[in-house]
C-alpha cells in the first residue's frame, strides 16, 4: 500500500499548524493525576448547569428520535431568536458552537492574501482558524488589558477583511462601551466586517455595555456571535449562533454545512431562551459571590488579579502557570494556564460555587507554600 505524500498534498499552513490538544476526559485525568475528585475551573462552564426547562428537554429526549435528522437550519430556534431581537430569522445562522460560526465567517470573507485583525491576548480560535486557513492573523497587543481600538484601526489595510472583537474579552473581562464600539464602526465605515463575539453577554451588568445585535440595523457590516455554552450551561450540546445584516448573513450561509447542529441542542437552546425561573439572576449572584471571595483571598495572598465582566478572573502568580496547573491538578483543581493566551505566569479561574472556590484557594495556598 502506497502512503500518500503528505508533504505534497497538505498546504504548508496546515502542516505547520500545531493542533490544539484538548484535555482528556475527567476520569482519565483523575487517574493520571491521582485525585479522587476534580473541580473544573478551566472552561468557564456554568456550575448550575442549564435552566430547568432545558434540563427537562434533555431528560425527555425520546431515544428513537436519535434516528431522525434535525432541522438543517435550526428553523424554530432562529425564529425564536429573531422575535426576541426584532430581526428576521434569515439574519441568523446557528452553528455547532460559536467556534463553528467563526469558521463560517472566515471562509465567507477571506481568501489568499487577505488578513484578519484581532488582539494578541484573547480567545485563540479567531487566530487559529485564520492561520490554518492560510489567512494572515494580525494580532494587536492589548492596551491596559483591553482591545486597543486605535491600533487595530491602524493595522487595517486593503487586504483586511474581518476584525474580531471579543466583548467582554476572554480572558481579561474588559469590554468596549457602546460609544467605543460605535466610534470604531463609524471609522471602519463598512469596508471590513466587524465581528463582536458576545459569548459572555449575559454575564455583563455594566450599563454602558452594548447589545451588539441592536446595532446591526445601523451597521450592516457588524456580525455578532452568541453562545449557549456559557450562561445557559449547555456547552456539552455545542450550539451558538451569529446574527448580522440579511445580505451579509446570506453570504455567510453559503459556507455553512447544514445539519451540523443536533436536534437536542436546538430544543434545549429554545428552552434556555424561554427560561423564566431566574437562571440568569441565580448565575450572576453566584458569580458575584465567587468574584468577591476570590478577589479578597488573592489580595490577602499578595497575588494581583485581572478582573472584569464574565464568570472568570485572572490571577498573576510569581512563577510558571503551567507548573501551577500541574500542581493544582494533583490537588483536584483544574484551572486554565494563560501562557497560551500570551499571559505567562497567569492563570484563569472560572467563578463557580463556593465549595469549589474554597477548594481552589486552599490548594493554591498549599502549592505556593
Amino acid at each position, binding site marked *: 500500500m502506497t*502512503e500518500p*505524500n*503528505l*508533504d505534497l498534498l497538505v498546504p504548508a499552513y496546515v502542516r*505547520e499548524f*500545531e493542533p490544539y*490538544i484538548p*484535555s*482528556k476526559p475527567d476520569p*482519565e*485525568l483523575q*487517574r*493520571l*493525576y*491521582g485525585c479522587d475528585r476534580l473541580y473544573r475551573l478551566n472552561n468557564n462552564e456554568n456550575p448550575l448547569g442549564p435552566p430547568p426547562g432545558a434540563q427537562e428537554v434533555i431528560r425527555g429526549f425520546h431515544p428513537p428520535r436519535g434516528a431522525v435528522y434535525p432541522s438543517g437550519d435550526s428553523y424554530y430556534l432562529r425564529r425564536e431568536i429573531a422575535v426576541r431581537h426584532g430581526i428576521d430569522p434569515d439574519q441568523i445562522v446557528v452553528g455547532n458552537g460559536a467556534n463553528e460560526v467563526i469558521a463560517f465567517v472566515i471562509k465567507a470573507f477571506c481568501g489568499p492574501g487577505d488578513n484578519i485583525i484581532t488582539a*494578541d491576548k484573547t480567545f*485563540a480560535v479567531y*487566530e*487559529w482558524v485564520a492561520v490554518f486557513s492560510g489567512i494572515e492573523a494580525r494580532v494587536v497587543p492589548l492596551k491596559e488589558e483591553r482591545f486597543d481600538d486605535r491600533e487595530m484601526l491602524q493595522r487595517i489595510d486593503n487586504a483586511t477583511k474581518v476584525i474580531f472583537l471579543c466583548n467582554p474579552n476572554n480572558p481579561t473581562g474588559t469590554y468596549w462601551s457602546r460609544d467605543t464600539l460605535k466610534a470604531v464602526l463609524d471609522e471602519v465605515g463598512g469596508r471590513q466586517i466587524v465581528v463582536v463575539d458576545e459569548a459572555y453577554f449575559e454575564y455583563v451588568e455594566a450599563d454602558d455595555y452594548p447589545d451588539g445585535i441592536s446595532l446591526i440595523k445601523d451597521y450592516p457590516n457588524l456580525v455578532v456571535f452568541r453562545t449557549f455554552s456559557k450562561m445557559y450551561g449547555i456547552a456539552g450540546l455545542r450550539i451558538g449562533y451569529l446574527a448580522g445584516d440579511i445580505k451579509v448573513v446570506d453570504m455567510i450561509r453559503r459556507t455553512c454545512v447544514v445539519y451540523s447542529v443536533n436536534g437536542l441542542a436546538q430544543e434545549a437552546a429554545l428552552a434556555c431562551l424561554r427560561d423564566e425561573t431566574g437562571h440568569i439572576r441565580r448565575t450572576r449572584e453566584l458569580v458575584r459571590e465567587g468574584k468577591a471571595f476570590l478577589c479578597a483571598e488573592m489580595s490577602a495572598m499578595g497575588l494581583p488579579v485581572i478582573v472584569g465582566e464574565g464568570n472568570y478572573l485572572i490571577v498573576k502568580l*510569581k*512563577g*510558571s502557570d*503551567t*507548573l501551577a*496547573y*500541574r*500542581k493544582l*491538578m*494533583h490537588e483536584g483543581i483544574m484551572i*486554565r*494556564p494563560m*501562557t*497560551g*493566551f*500570551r499571559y*505567562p*505566569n497567569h492563570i484563569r479561574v472560572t467563578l463557580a460555587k463556593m465549595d469549589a472556590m474554597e477548594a481552589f484557594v486552599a490548594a493554591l495556598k498549599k502549592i505556593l507554600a
Partner: protein
Amino acid sequence: MPVATHCVETAAKAFGLGRDESLKLSLATEEIFSYLSSNVCRGESVDIRCVNGLSYVRVEFRFSVSALDMGALNIAASVTCDNDDDMPEMGLAIASRTIDRLNIMAERQNRVCLAIEKDKDYPSVPETPLPPAVVKGLLTAETPDTEGVKIYVTRVNQGPPDPLRPPFFQYPGKVADMVAAGDCQIVTAVDARGECAGGVLFRFRTARIVEVFGPHVFCPAREGEIADMLLTACIARIARTKAIGIVNLTGMPLSVRGQYELLGSLKYSGDDGKSFVRSWYYRLLHEDPGYLVFTDAILKEYLEGEFKRLFLAREIRDVHDQGEIKEVASIFSTEMLREGSTAVLSPLWPGADLDDNVKRHLRFLKDEAINNIFFNLDLGIYWHASLMRVLIDNNCRPALIIPFGAQADMLIFQYDRTEP
C-alpha cells in the same frame, strides 16, 4: 559523482562559502555519495539538495533504503566491537570530519535524509568595546533590525565570560544572518532613544522545544524588570506556535529562575579538556494532558521519582523482552556537532544487535575524539525502552528528562567518560 560534487561546490560558493569551506563540503559530498551508492542504495536514485542557510550551507541527500541495507546508515557501520581490531575507514566517518554538522533523519515513506552543514567564516566581535548602555525611562520589547542584532550580540560579549554560551555569540554578523534565515529570533528591550537595555535570543532546538539564551541584561540596576519583560515577550512570541516547552541552558538571570523548573544537569568536556556542568531549566508552555510512557524495569523507580518531582502525570508501563523476533540490524541517527565536540544519538530502528551497535558507536566516537556523547530516548516509543539496560551496561547514565522533548518525553543518557 562529478555532477554531484561540482553542483555542491558551485552552490556553496554561490551561497557565500569561502573557497576552502566549499572544497571541504564538496569532498564530504564525494565521500557520502560514493558510500551511499555502493553500500546503502545501490542502483537507486539519490536526491541532492543544497540549501542556503545564510550562515551555513547545507547539503541534503534523500534516498529510499531497503531493510537489508539499513544497517549501513549507522555512522559506525564498519567499526568492529573488538577494541583490538583496526577501524577501517568509511565514507560517513570521513565526511563527518570535514564538515561542522552531520545528521541522519528518518522521513516519511521509508525515506532517509542525511544532511551535512558547513559554516561560513565571520569576523568576531570588534575589539573596541561599545560604551556602557545608558538607559532612561520606559522600555519596550521589540524585534531589532540587523544593526540592533549586532549591537545586542556585541553587548552580550562585553559582559562576563560564560563558558556555556554558544560560539555563535562571538560573531554578530553570523547571528544577524541566523535571524534573517529564520534560524533564531531576538527580542530586545529598548528605551525611547533606541538604547538597548537587554535582549533574548531563542530558537527551535527540536520540533517542539525552543531553546532560550538569556535574557541578557545590560542595565544591572533594572535587571528584574528587564529580564521579566524580555522573557514575557519571548514566550508571547512562541506561545501559539508548535513549541510545547522551552529550555534554558545559559545566560538566565537569577530574577527569572523562579519561572523555570530545574530538569537536571549534564557534564560537558570542553575542547581545552576542562569540564563544566550545565543545568537545564525548563518551562512547559501548555497544560500537561498526561501521557503513557514505556520503560525497562531497571529505570522504573528513576522515572517515577523524576515524574513526581516534576509533577508530570505519567502512566509508566514496563516493557519486557519476551523472545519476539527482531530485525538483525538496529540503526541510530547521529548528530555530530564538531563545534563543542558533541554527538547526539537517537535510535531510529530496533534490532537484535543493540548492544553491539552501542559499543560500535561509542568506540567510533571516542576514536573521533568526541568528548560529549548523548543518547536521546523517546519514552513514548515502546522499543526505545529496550535500550535502557544496554546503555547502562555500557557506562551511560540517565541524566535528565525533557518533557515532550520527543513524541512523548525525551530521556537523555550521558556517556560516562570515566569508565574503566
